[in-house]
């Protein structure tokens, strides 16, 4: 919680920065939610399709989100991730398919009947109500006794560090504060699933990083299922246990952030999540390895790192897994000769562009851990990598 005390918009707010007091808020919530929480269960989407006229926003999507996980739907705008979220919230009805929550079919349920709450991208706070009234809204609608609403609202406002702001109006709060009110307003209901629709998109970078850590912590504390929609790959990777990369209404790959990053399933994922150098070639099995022939060279890749073992393929290497040297390439590495065409020093690393003999430029991130200065453009180098650091993808 101390992180939020540094939030730039509330310089005078130091009341909760006492040592040891840090986790008081979440602990209260944990007790409250343990008592009030309904049965939780996995969220399943089975063959869900959503058409808007001729346009298919979500295409036969099947997905299982285990209870208590922090799940990120990652994709560029228009990939169907928000539509998927809105179908779970009940704000859009699937054209075909089924959505179940804890085994119960919720596909045709109205939004107000679902044990699901949303933190909207625009926050959608009620401008005519105070912060307290906003947070109390869901509890009131469900008919929670008045005597119980107040303490729960207070606890929740403490959790998001806005205890002193209860009587203000949304318009009197900064963007970051409004974001936290939106979060409190959803969380106070202890939904089975909390849906977050790019909730940090409107915040500046520094505040966004703080809120990412904060959201992750709150999720761990309350133990609810969070489904987070974002186009920010770094946000998805830092926060979620499972990331689903969406493209054109379908899931390209689903898995833990490291898994997706280290071994992408498709060229789209390899380039959407971080950068990749992709060499076009042809794969064929060679013992335990797969050999990729590209531009007159053969590169070995362990079979376990190959999505295809034969036919047209991409050989992929992440820029930070590539090394450049002017000396001999260490044993057991693949290498491509080239000339440095660009060198940008960015402090922690130097980013090189190395032009291979066939004209393609490879991107290399070299950590500035040594004492030697960065290599100059024009230097002839060998770009090399360990076979286990590369991967082979299908080339359509």
């Amino acid at each position, binding site marked *: 919680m101390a992180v939020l005390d540094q939030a730039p918009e509330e310089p005078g707010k130091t009341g909760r920065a006492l040592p040891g007091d840090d986790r008081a808020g979440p602990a209260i919530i944990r007790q409250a939610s343990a008592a009030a929480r309904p049965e939780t269960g996995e969220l399943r989407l089975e063959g869900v399709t959503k058409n808007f006229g001729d346009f298919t926003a979500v295409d036969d999507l099947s997905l299982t989100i285990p209870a208590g996980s922090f799940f990120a739907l990652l994709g560029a705008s228009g990939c169907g991730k928000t539509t998927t979220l809105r179908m779970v919230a009940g704000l859009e009805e699937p054209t075909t398919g089924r959505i179940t929550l804890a085994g119960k079919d919720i596909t045709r349920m109205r*939004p107000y009947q679902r044990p699901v709450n949303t933190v909207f991208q625009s926050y*959608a706070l009620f401008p005519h109500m105070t912060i307290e009234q906003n947070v109390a809204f*869901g509890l009131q*609608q469900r008919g929670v006794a008045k005597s119980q609403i107040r303490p729960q609202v207070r606890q929740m406002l403490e959790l998001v560090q806005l205890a002193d702001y209860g009587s203000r109006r949304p318009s009197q709060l900064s963007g970051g504060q409004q974001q936290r009110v939106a979060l409190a307003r959803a969380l106070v209901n202890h939904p089975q699933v909390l849906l977050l629709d790019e909730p940090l998109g409107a915040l500046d970078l520094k505040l966004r990083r703080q809120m990412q850590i904060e959201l992750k912590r709150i999720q761990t504390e309350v133990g609810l299922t969070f489904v987070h929609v974002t186009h920010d790959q770094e946000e998805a990777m830092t926060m979620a246990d499972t990331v689903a990369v969406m493209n054109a209404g379908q899931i390209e790959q689903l898995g833990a952030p490291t898994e997706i990053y280290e071994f992408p399933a498709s060229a789209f994922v390899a380039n959407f999540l971080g950068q990749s150098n992709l060499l076009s070639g042809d794969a064929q099995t060679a013992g335990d390895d797969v050999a990729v022939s590209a531009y007159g060279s053969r590169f070995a890749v362990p079979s376990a790192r190959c999505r295809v073992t034969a036919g047209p393929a991409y050989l992929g290497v992440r820029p930070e897994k590539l090394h450049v040297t002017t000396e001999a390439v260490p044993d057991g590495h693949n290498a491509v000769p080239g000339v440095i065409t660009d060198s940008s020093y960015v402090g922690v690393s130097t980013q090189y562009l190395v032009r291979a003999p066939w004209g393609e430029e490879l991107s290399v991130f070299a950590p500035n851990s040594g004492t030697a200065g960065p290599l100059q453009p024009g230097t002839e180098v060998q770009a090399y990598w360990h076979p286990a650091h590369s991967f082979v993808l299908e080339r359509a």
Partner: protein
Amino acid sequence: MSAVLTTGTGTGTEYEPAAEPVAGAKRRAWVPYVQLLPGGVWLLLFFALPVGLLAQSTLWDPSGSLEQGYALTWRWQNFTDGLSTYSDQFIRSLEYSLIATVICLVIGYPLAYAIAIKGGRWKNLMLIAVIAPFFTSFLVRTLAWKTILSDSGFVVDALRWLHVFGPDDRLLATNIAVIAGITYNFLPFMVLPLYASLEKLDPRLLEAAGDLYANPVKTFWKVTLPLSMPGVVGGTLMTFIPAAGDYINAELLGSPSTTMIGNVIQSQYQRVGDIPVGAALSFTLMAGILIMVFAYVRKAGTDEVV
């Protein structure tokens, strides 16, 4: 900007605000008053001055005439005379205009809501349809209603056929006809302010309410209605105020038993020629409406929603 840059290089020059902006601000300061001038003069000549003259005429001695002139005798009795003689018409006016305002709200709110929220690309066309009646004169429209509600009109025919009406029942010359006429004539004044405030309503707030367990009915009472209160207040005022002083509807669609205060004032001025009592009645109506409006606006608390 340059000052910031120079301190950055260490010369230490202090930023000193230039003198011109202050003079410029001063010069600009009276531009708004110039802009107010035409409207102000207009209001002064054609509103404040006539109201002053009207106020003065409320205290004239009624024994005079327009030809011979009236004597200002500070006759406060004009007010008490007018009120005691025409209290029925006063109450009737408020009653009719209140009922018409409520009906306008009940008809106008769903209409404005449908246009604003569901109108889509038909929005402008539907708005034009709402104000289309204004393309004909008030008098012509009311005369048309006279035909519609007449004893041989299709409305009465239909009611007779349904046995709601007996052979001698009629619509014309009843209070129903007068209220219907007022409702019809002032409906656009209700719809337009309502539309303006509903159009601004963020549909995402309605989604948020639904997401927070409010069913559509609760969403309406808790979110839609409070946020459209400026339109409700504006619309009811725009309907009620002119309706309370209206006399055309009662004149054309009513009977002597449905006479409103507007009819009395009109006849005091134009038929009876008792200008002081007519003026006193006008003044009383104006004061009464002002008091009611103030009380209403305070109660509705528009400052909270705008």
